[in-house]
């Protein structure tokens, strides 16, 4: 049911049950928000979105007040603007004001609001709270001095990820967001997904940077610095350069990486294909020999850590396959090193990932062979953007190049890894081939595509009926795992990605991307799959070559040594 209400002396259409904020936004009116988090219940705590209700003469929060017929509102009256400005001035009175040194300079909601509301003097001065910078995590840096207590990180960690490792501590002017007992974040159940960074309006949360070491290595003549990039990077990097969301700039990115000084450019999608070879073989083996089922994917380091902390009894359900990043790291320092006669210890292996948890994964002790780390530094999509800016590379005016071979050719199945459901689709294509010896006729499994939190499908392969599920967002994973534990649901194979939508919406991606931008990234991945001819990992000629020359067969001795791993229960603060 819809009705009219008066806003700024004009009639607008409002729908029963929606908030004033939703009605305003739908009618092209913007009011600033800070604590508002789309998809989450409003808290109305920051008061930035206040509008003036002329009937009651009160300032009310647009984000948490439902519309009513006959409402008369002003969204930008002098009183409203004055109130919003005071809030920003109060926030600034307890803010470090070191914008020029801040990781979020020019991409900060507090900075934007200060600009929009024309804050031009330091009107309110007070004692600033001083907190410890928390650099304990391998992935995430917390600077509570820059925190404005909007609580978005707390809510995303709880509601979307089901982790709840941070919450508000203390009260009033002493309030701070942190881990239980004020401990460092590395002792908490934080899975390093980085979704808190994605929703942070300021620089209070950011990824841990490896820039100084990386730049030193790029300038070290003794080191061969190589790079790999994840399937979703080519469709999301464009947004760091104000290009249209979903633009695939794979070739330009290859060229840019070479210009920065990376000697060899590899595509992690190649090892996504390799992961599928191993994981599909593992699935077929588990199904045909009565192994542990359901099998969970293990590509997502956020999910892996989540399982190790909250569901350690299910660890043996996780595929033993390493993630594509670590498989690439392992084959670069073995297969490729042998082939090119490069000493593994002289290779500095960098990866570009849509993910902050990959930084944690790279430094796990299981990901080290004979004292040599498989991946030495992990950059997020954002950091690659910064690096390209730093090296003065103009993406608009360079020609596309291809990735290096071997380890650079991919199927479109591997590319699908970037979106939720992609690993599942790719695995089914290859598992089908492994069981039947034939190729699937209908590659696309529509039921497993899109942004739904939990998707299911049943597949018939010969006389086998296989039921699969695809989950994104760890809160959804928790629900599914609980229902499996209770025996309410049964599956053979389950793909879990920590971030909503999968890696295209990972914690290392462009900050401030809209929902439609993330959809555009997903569409581009599906378009690539539609367009290209090699649609299955086992059809990738370089995959066939690496098995012939080096690995032998999936699940073989060499594969086990290099491409598989194990997990362990983690004792963290739950």
């Amino acid at each position, binding site marked *: 049911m819809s009705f009219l209400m008066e806003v700024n002396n004009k009639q607008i259409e409002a729908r029963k049950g929606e908030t004033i904020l939703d009605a305003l936004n739908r009618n092209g009116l913007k009011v600033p928000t800070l604590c508002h988090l789309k998809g989450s219940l409003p808290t109305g705590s920051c008061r930035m979105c206040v509008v003036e209700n002329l009937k009651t003469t009160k300032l009310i929060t647009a984000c948490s007040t439902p519309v009513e017929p006959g409402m008369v509102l002003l969204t930008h009256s002098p009183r409203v603007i004055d109130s919003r400005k005071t809030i920003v001035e109060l926030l600034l009175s307890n803010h470090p004001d070191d914008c020029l040194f801040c990781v979020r300079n020019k991409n900060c909601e507090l900075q934007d609001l200060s600009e929009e509301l024309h804050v031009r003097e330091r009107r309110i001065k007070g004692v600033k709270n001083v907190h410890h910078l928390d650099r304990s995590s391998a992935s995430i840096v917390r600077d509570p001095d820059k925190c404005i207590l909007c609580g978005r990180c707390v809510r995303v960690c709880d509601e979307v990820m089901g982790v709840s490792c*941070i919450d508000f501590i203390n009260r009033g002017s002493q309030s701070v967001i942190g*881990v239980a007992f004020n401990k460092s974040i590395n002792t*908490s159940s934080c899975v390093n997904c980085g979704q808190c960074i994605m929703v942070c309006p300021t620089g209070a949360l950011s990824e841990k940077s490896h820039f100084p070491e990386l730049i030193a290595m790029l300038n070290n003549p003794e080191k061969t610095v190589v790079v790999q990039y994840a399937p979703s990077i080519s469709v999301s990097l464009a947004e760091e350069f104000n290009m249209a969301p979903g633009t695939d700039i794979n070739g330009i990115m290859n060229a840019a990486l070479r210009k920065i000084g990376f000697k060899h450019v590899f595509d992690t999608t190649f090892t996504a294909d390799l992961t599928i070879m191993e994981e599909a073989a593992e699935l077929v083996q588990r199904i045909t020999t009565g192994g542990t089922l359901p099998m969970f994917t293990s590509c997502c380091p956020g999910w892996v850590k989540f399982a190790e902390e909250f569901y350690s009894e299910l660890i043996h359900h996780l595929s033993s396959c390493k993630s594509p990043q670590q498989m690439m790291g392992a084959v670069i320092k073995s297969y490729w090193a042998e082939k090119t006669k490069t000493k593994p210890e002289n290779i500095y292996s960098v990866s570009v990932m849509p993910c902050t948890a990959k930084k944690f994964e790279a430094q796990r002790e299981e990901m080290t062979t004979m004292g040599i780390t498989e991946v030495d530094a992990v950059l997020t999509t954002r950091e690659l953007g910064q690096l390209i800016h730093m090296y003065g590379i103009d993406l608009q005016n360079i020609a596309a190049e291809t990735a290096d071979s071997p380890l650079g050719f991919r199927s479109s199945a591997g590319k699908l890894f970037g979106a939720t459901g992609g690993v599942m689709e790719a695995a089914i294509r290859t598992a089908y081939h492994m069981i039947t010896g034939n190729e699937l006729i209908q590659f696309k499994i529509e039921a497993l595509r899109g942004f739904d939190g939990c998707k299911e499908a049943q597949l018939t392969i010969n006389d086998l009926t296989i039921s699969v599920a695809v989950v994104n967002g760890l809160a959804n994973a928790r629900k599914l795992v609980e229902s499996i534990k209770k025996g309410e649901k049964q599956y053979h194979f389950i793909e879990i990605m920590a971030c909503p939508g999968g890696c295209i919406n990972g914690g290392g991606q462009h900050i401030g991307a809209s929902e439609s931008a993330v959809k555009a990234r997903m569409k581009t991945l599906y378009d690539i799959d539609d367009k290209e001819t090699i649609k299955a990992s086992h059809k990738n000629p370089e995959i066939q070559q690496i098995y012939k020359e080096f690995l032998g067969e999936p699940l073989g001795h060499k594969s086990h040594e290099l491409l598989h791993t194990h997990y362990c229960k983690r004792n963290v603060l739950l």
Partner: protein
Amino acid sequence: METKIQGILDRYPAEKTENLIPILQDIQDHDGFLSQESVIEVSKYLKMPSSRIFGVATFYNQFRFTPLGKYHIQVCRGTACHVLGSVTVLDEVEKNIGVKAGQTSRDGMFSLEVVACIGACGLAPVIAINGNFHAKVTCESIKEILDNYRNQE
């Protein structure tokens, strides 16, 4: 293994988070403070993240996170005491025992708490040690009072 606070938890249904504050109060009555171990036990029992329990507990002044000292000092910071200089009193006590409000001295002798109003405005500025009131304290008398407790050892 039977945990120390199991007896308290058994009085409340599992996974019912609305009982959080009574549970924490019972634990504090029993132990004198909320230890990390007990918060983690409560977290498991109620299936509630320890971060949230810590958040709730730190919201309220009544909860402590360090054990009480042998002598628990309460410094009144109510209006009457404030007018008569309780800031200086608090400062003097902190300096004397070497800890801040909410903390316990390393030897376990003294713990310090700030209270809003102790209800003895006629005696301002007032402090209470293990429930015994000391009226109209001054910097000099504080030294004497605390030394008396020390000398009882």
